[in-house]
């Protein structure tokens, strides 16, 4: 459809690990495609279907949720809740016949600047190939 399609992605990053990892990517001047807008939350456990579905409904082509590696959550167990919630969210998307791979959950530590860059670039790449979200045209924004 379009070769020049640039996806519009939202990334919910937890403050303690993933946001710090994103900062490290910057501090080491890694190149990232300008497709993902970061929204900082204190912990990945704050992110629920409400936040993700709203982003999709408003036309996001993809939503990334990133938190500390299992066991590393600054609040001990938050990312386990995030993981469970994410599984549920996938099911919801599937049952609504929405493309469930437009959401992704990744663990990114504060030391993983490179990994952050790779994850964002790969996610952007994947979503580019998928094309724009079918919900884009319904979005009121």
């Amino acid at each position: 459809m379009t070769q020049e399609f640039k996806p519009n992605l939202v990334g919910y990053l937890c403050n303690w690990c993933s946001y710090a990892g994103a900062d490290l990517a910057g501090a080491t001047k890694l190149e990232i495609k300008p497709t993902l807008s970061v929204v900082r939350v204190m912990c990945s456990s704050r992110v629920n279907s409400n936040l993700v579905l709203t982003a999709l409904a408003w036309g996001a082509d993809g939503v990334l949720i990133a938190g500390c590696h299992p066991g590393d959550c600054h609040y001990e167990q938050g990312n386990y809740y995030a993981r469970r919630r994410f599984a549920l969210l996938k099911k919801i998307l599937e049952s609504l016949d929405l493309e469930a791979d437009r959401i992704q959950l990744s663990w990114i530590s504060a030391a993983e600047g490179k990994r952050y860059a790779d994850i964002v670039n790969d996610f952007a790449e994947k979503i580019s190939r998928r094309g724009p979200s079918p919900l884009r045209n319904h979005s009121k924004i």
Partner: protein
Amino acid sequence: MKNESVLILGAGVAGMEASLLLAAAGRKVHLVEKEPMIGGQLIKFEEVYPHMECSTCMVAPQQQAVLQNGNIEIHYLSALEKLEGSAGAFKASVKKKARYVSLANCIGCGACYDPCPVSLENEFEEGLAAARKAIAVPCAGALPNVPAIDPRHCLFLNGKDTQCRACKDACVFDAVQFEDKDETAVLDVGAVVVATGFGLLDVKQNPQYGYGEGKNVYTALEFERLFASNGPTGGNLTLRNGQTPKTVGIVHCVGRSELGYCSGVCCMYSVKFSRFLKHKLPDVRIREFHTDLCVPGKAYQKFFEKTRSEGVEFVRAETVKIASKESRLQVLYQNGGRGEEVFEADMVILSPAMIPAAGAKELAEVLGIKLDAKGFFAGRPGSLSPVETPVEGIFVIGCAEGPKDIPESVAQAAAAVGKILSLIPHEAN
């Protein structure tokens, strides 16, 4: 009236914890660190046992909190030179080496590194990394993110090139200050906490371990950097020729019998290394050579068992020798009654004994306290608490007191704080 300020020597995990707690209690803290950054050994590790937590994620908030705390004054590149007085009224002379970069002006952009014409070995990366410059931060993500100039190697400062101003010209924040001078600060404090940590036994001293130039025998700290995603290989576990190891031997207790003590943490971190390896190279064959396995306490044995169940081999080995055979390595070891056996490996990791930090002896003299027979700071005879030293008002915590892991180091830090806050209560009380 007793002085409520506290002098803390060493900004590792123990020193930082003590600083933060004292600062929270409203105490002024002078944190003296010999390096241009804070964090100690922990910032070299990717993950820590037993929960394989990301070490950076764990300590970075602590480091930030130290940097941002108004009650904590950090003296970088510093050492205690003289201590006079007694509990409640010490006078400490702290010698600060010049950093030549202004902490106030520098924003850590790194524009000054490239222009510097000098290349040096990177000590932080255990010599595994590409060279660093004469103006540099020790590692990516170092806190504070402000470089220091090494005056021994800077061409301008060592007088080899009076014209070189490359870094100064590159810095638009006017942060490079060649006019910086070493100085001595005299600090009045009520108590002193020694948190100078540990070093590792130099394995070069003992040829039996086959450590040497270009060989694929690594020390534990080298391996930590090799695994670290912010390390010299970006976390790729490769041999020195760039290939991936297929068999790895991990040798515990290096130096234990010579030194006469068990370092308490090497078994656990060696098991951690197997986890690292299995995580990145699922097909790698690993054999760990141990004497007595030391996995004390409620959480550690499980960690070992889980690792063993993933196929890591554990053998009891009395004496271990490493030999080279063509491009590979041979681990020759005595296996109890079964006599000498051989294990061929692409890579061997040595887990050397933890020893007192360099300079512990000189520091002990300055402090007027004794070291024990092993060279660590000695506790007060007749006290059940190892953080108390024979001199009232001086405490020792973390690995400066003896080998231990993070939770024990942190507990000792809080314990010293407990002693200090009850020894020198706030005057308004």
